[in-house]
């Protein structure tokens, strides 16, 4: 069996707000093998970003906390690590690409300095001269001219800014890269360029990657396995083949696929999922999807379904038992 770079077991995360406790992640199980790419798919509020922030241990202080569960990074339990220990892991073992390239760069620091900062913090032993050389190498790698490292973020276009953010995340050659909607803010032609580049770099560094997205098209092109999240739980996961071609699916997955306009077919109407995402402060009993589910059974209303396994394919639904 292949070694696992990331293993999340029965993770619960909640945020404490004025309106009550937000149950963002509710018993999440995830595994990622070395060198693979996992696509984490779900709509706004499904808990995708919270999951990644828990792995990075960047949940907002005081408000957000892990209440239960373990996160194993490369076999080591990082759930209870102290901040100083975690700081050593960030950048080298695990690193993150944030969602919005426009706001995740510091506007008053030159691009070169921002990339150098990552190296100074996490690989100080390199020395100043080596860090400078390394910045040039990294810029070249993501397809930017090294002469431009003295420029500031506002002088770059959105696609270029995202390349810089990716360069920063890969600067220390992390073992695991968490990419939170890296291409959502980009135009399709630029998105294609950036995805192609990320795939290439992932192979060069043999990095494992977790790609968060709501776009099932992007997943089909870049990932090896897929996990679909709804209301803080993984409701279906498996290899690309399991999710895209197998016969059985969670009703939510089916709804998600039906909502996407199909370019190859001529249907006039779309068939969306009825209703809205449940409020995470007040989740429904039983299966969280039951109020929107077209195939809702009686048992769905009060009992949370267990995961049914078909080889690599896992579905959490009462229809499959």
């Amino acid at each position, binding site marked *: 069996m292949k070694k696992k770079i990331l293993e999340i077991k029965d993770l619960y995360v909640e945020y404490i707000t004025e309106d009550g406790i937000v149950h963002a992640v509710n018993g999440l199980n995830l595994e990622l093998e070395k060198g693979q790419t996992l696509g984490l798919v779900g*709509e*706004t509020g499904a808990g995708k970003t919270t999951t990644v922030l828990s792995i990075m241990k960047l949940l907002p202080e005081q408000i957000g906390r892990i209440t239960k569960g373990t996160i194993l990074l490369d076999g080591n339990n990082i759930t209870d690590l102290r901040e100083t220990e975690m700081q050593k892991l960030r950048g080298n073992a695990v690193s993150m690409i944030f969602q919005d390239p426009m706001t995740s760069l510091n506007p008053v620091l030159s691009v070169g300095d921002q990339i150098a900062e990552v190296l100074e913090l996490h690989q100080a032993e390199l020395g100043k001269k080596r860090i400078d050389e390394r910045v040039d190498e990294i810029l070249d790698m993501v397809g930017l001219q090294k002469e431009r490292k003295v420029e500031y973020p506002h002088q770059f*276009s*959105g*696609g*270029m800014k995202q390349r810089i953010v990716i360069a920063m995340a890969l600067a220390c050659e992390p073992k695991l890269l968490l990419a939170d909607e890296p291409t959502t803010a980009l*135009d*399709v*032609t*630029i*998105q*294609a*360029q950036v*995805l*192609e580049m990320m795939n290439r770099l992932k192979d060069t560094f043999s990095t494992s990657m977790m790609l968060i997205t*709501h*776009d*099932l*098209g*992007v*997943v*089909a*092109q870049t990932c090896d396995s897929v996990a679909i999240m709804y209301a803080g739980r993984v409701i279906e996961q498996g290899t*690309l*083949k399991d999710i*895209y*071609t197998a016969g059985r699916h969670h009703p939510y997955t089916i*709804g*998600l*696929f*039906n*909502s*996407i*306009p*199909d*370019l*190859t077919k*001529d*249907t*006039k*109407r*779309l*068939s*969306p*999922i009825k209703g*809205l*995402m449940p409020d995470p402060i007040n989740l429904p009993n039983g299966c969280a999807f039951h109020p929107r589910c077209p195939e809702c059974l009686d048992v769905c209303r009060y009992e949370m379904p267990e995961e049914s396994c078909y080889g690599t394919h896992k579905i959490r639904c009462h229809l499959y038992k």
Partner: protein
Amino acid sequence: MSVPLLETKGLKKYFKTKNGFLHAVDDINIKIDEGNTLGVVGESGCGKSTLGRTILRLIEPTEGEVSFNGKNIIEYNRKSMVAIREKMQIIFQDPYASLNPRMTVGEIIAEPLYVCKITKGKKETNNRVRSLMETVGLAERYENAYPHELDGGRRQRIGIARALSVNPKFIVCDEPVSALDVSIQAQILNLMMDLQEEQKLTYLFITHDLSVVKHISDEIAVMYLGKCVEKAPSKELYSNPKHPYTQALLSAIPIPKLDQGKIVNIIKGEVLSPINPAPGCRFAPRCPYINKDCTVAEPPLCEINENHFVLCTLY
């Protein structure tokens, strides 16, 4: 042939900037017949939103004509413009920024009714607001709620109800579903198609997402740096794209299927600045089929098939 409901002739909008003129909309000629939808597609910065706003004169055009029902509305004074806006409405892109946070849902939808003096008295207004909310699928209990209490999909429904309140004939839809999740996006698209059928609405549907317009449009115009580079009936454009930019745009859409393979046709480079563009085809620097004619003069608009126009030297 009957007069198209909306027509633009040589519509231009140049913005003056420190470094010269920014050609946001450059010589756009479109026609939309009543009850039809024209999809306008392009990447950020291609001028599609400016086009939508210029048509409604929310931005004054630099040159050109906009005809509504055969009359050039550019010549209208302020008073007749207010009157004609009853017939021409807009749904904005961002359902978070386009609603006044200090007004309740009911007040937001009622506002155009007061401005255009459509309903008389409070009772009639209230009834109209309720029936509009029902049309767009908003529960009555939200009437006294404020926009921040609602999610993106419901907010976009408010935007649609507000646009519909004055019984318009023509609506500019400026990326109405881009800010929404896919399952909600499909709900809103279905709603807009139903409303079009019931009320014989005409849409100018602006979006960056080619897969969205395919469903809703009769005709599609592809824009690049202020120019319309290709215009064709919806089916024709998807089955037989001719302009290299349209081809690249179509092949860059990630398709949620396995057998489609990886993207082959990735175009290089990024969109150039629309400020003082160089002569010739604006797509030339990124075009894989560039030849020497492309940088000399602007290519002529050719009709290669019935109603299928391409702006490219290849044809």
